């Protein structure tokens, strides 16, 4: 076995994709809901992770989720737009807002970037929380799902079909980010994360690349919001709250930041854990907290990150003493 780190990562993703598609239709109606939720959160985690490629970690990603959800919900419910067109407009809004906010957000980095993004998301949250247009804190129901029956034969109002659709969308999003990561653009982001000063000294436009990554992340995040609000059929300011930003951050860290597939595993794990803990224990946040503490102390690189490091170690010990470089 001499698979490279990247090949192992892709293999894990492919196995999860196939397993999900095979297992999901055979599960109970309730499990379908969990599959859909996990797949949507996984898309959201991917949007955070593609930004993390450039070395920026956002604590306000729920802003993009909420933005996509409110754009889609507003256009379909209030303006009676067809859902298909609303999806594209919601993604476009994600890009535009990503560019505008990014112009000053990506000037900062580290803890400061965390705070600026948090502030931006909270501004959006407090706006929709009070906004009479979207019925403020009470939220707004009746958000429709996409009608793709004539195209694919899938009726998305059927839970099985919707869960399948979510998984397929998640796989597509994963392929997109994996593809972007190997383009020159993606490679440059990687280099910026490893040493922004060096890239800057070499003449790389760190600001522009990070801005582009932020807008791209905004697009995928808004798409996750579009999916999320189709799943619940309900617009709520909570979609944009910092708790959601924290959840997705934790999902990415648990899975392994920068591994893409880690976010998918993290999303599945968090949805599953929340479900079994909350239905079996009254004080399930205690257990969830305990799991976070465990992961932070025992698997600080996340599940996938730690696994990949372990395979690196095995490879290194098998091969000649020559130094091996990891790819990511």
């Amino acid at each position: 076995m001499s698979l490279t780190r990247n090949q192992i990562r892709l293999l894990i993703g492919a196995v999860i994709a196939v397993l999900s598609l095979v297992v999901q239709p055979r599960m109970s109606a309730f499990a379908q809901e969990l599959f859909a939720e996990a797949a949507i959160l996984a898309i959201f985690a991917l949007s955070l992770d593609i930004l993390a490629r450039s070395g920026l970690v956002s604590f306000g990603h729920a802003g993009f989720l909420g933005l996509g959800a409110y754009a889609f919900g507003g256009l379909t419910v209030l303006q009676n737009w067809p859902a298909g067109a609303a999806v594209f407009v919601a993604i476009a809004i994600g890009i535009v807002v990503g560019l505008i906010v990014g112009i000053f957000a990506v000037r900062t980095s580290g803890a400061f970037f965390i705070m600026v993004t948090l502030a931006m998301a909270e501004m959006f949250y407090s706006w929709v929380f009070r906004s009479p247009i979207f019925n403020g804190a009470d939220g707004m129901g009746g958000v429709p799902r996409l009608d793709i029956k004539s195209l694919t034969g899938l009726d998305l109002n059927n839970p099985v079909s919707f869960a399948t659709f979510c998984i397929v969308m998640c796989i597509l999003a994963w392929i997109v980010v994996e593809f972007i990561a190997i383009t020159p653009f993606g490679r440059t982001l990687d280099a910026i994360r490893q040493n922004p000063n060096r890239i800057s000294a070499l003449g790389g436009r760190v600001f522009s690349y990070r801005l582009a990554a932020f807008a791209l992340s905004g697009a995928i995040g808004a798409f996750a919001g579009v999916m999320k609000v189709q799943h619940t059929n309900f617009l709520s300011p909570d979609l944009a709250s910092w708790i959601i930003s924290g959840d997705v951050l934790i999902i990415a860290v648990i899975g392994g930041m920068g591994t893409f597939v880690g976010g998918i595993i993290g999303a599945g794990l968090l949805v599953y854990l929340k479900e079994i803990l909350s239905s079996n224990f009254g004080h399930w946040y205690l257990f969830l907290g305990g799991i976070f503490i465990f992961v932070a102390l025992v698997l600080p690189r996340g599940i996938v990150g730690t696994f990949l490091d372990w395979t690196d170690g095995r490879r290194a010990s098998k091969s000649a003493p020559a130094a091996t470089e990891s790819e990511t």
Partner: protein
Amino acid sequence: MGLDPQFIIEQLLNSLQFAMLLFLLAIGLSVIFGLMDYLNLAHGTIYMLAAYLAYSIAQLSGSFWVAFFLAPVAATAIGMVLYLVLLKRAEMETHLVQVLLTVGVIYAGTDILRHIYGDLPKGVTQPEFFTAPVQIFGVSYPSYRLFIIGLGLVIQIGLYFALERTRLGALVRAGVDDRQTVETLGVNIGAVFMLVFAIGTYLAGVAGVVAAPIFGVYPGMDATIIILVLIVVVVGGLGSLKGAILGSLLIGFADTFGKILLPQFAMVMIYLVMAIVLIFRPTGLLPARRFTGAG
């Protein structure tokens, strides 16, 4: 809404009082971050823990003052155990791992307190000495809130002298600016950090106790305030006392006056202040020297 001078004076005092609470939490978070690069979100859990301890102690002893002196000490003791058993292990990890760890502590801590005390908010009565309002600048103002302002000022002056005039303070400032050099000079920075962590935790505990009679004690009170405290630290700049003071004043005023001037967008005011500061000063207004560079 009346904007008469009396009303404005009252709100200015309210802002100042809230700023003092924010400061008590922000200074610990800021110096802990500055000295050890540790992003300790569980700082707010200590605030909540101290508030609950104050409730219990006040119930048992029947006196706010017993709680005022004992609860922060007890919270600090628990905080130090938490640090030595759990938090210390992530000292060398990235901020993200520290966030994961301390969010885990927040979740677990909130649930434990909820298990003990229940979901309903608890009230702590104000000390009898400060129940009557006092006349100040022509307005009648709750004396308990004035007490918080005074307490905050005393602590700020005390910390200023401790940091600027003592050997330990010099070590802390030097450690924030360049930890490795200080270590190379033979200083046990770990011991200095322990002490700083204890003082920061103690002040968070004091904040929890004095806040309890005003805001009540409830599960989740830590999350409400920790976001504001993080903003204070970012606006003020990392690792500096002056930054924490200035940041807490700005955010205290923005919060209070935001609620009056733009009731529809109360929180927006705070984030607006933060966004404007960070556009012009990406590292905050008065950061310690090490943080004046990019990011």
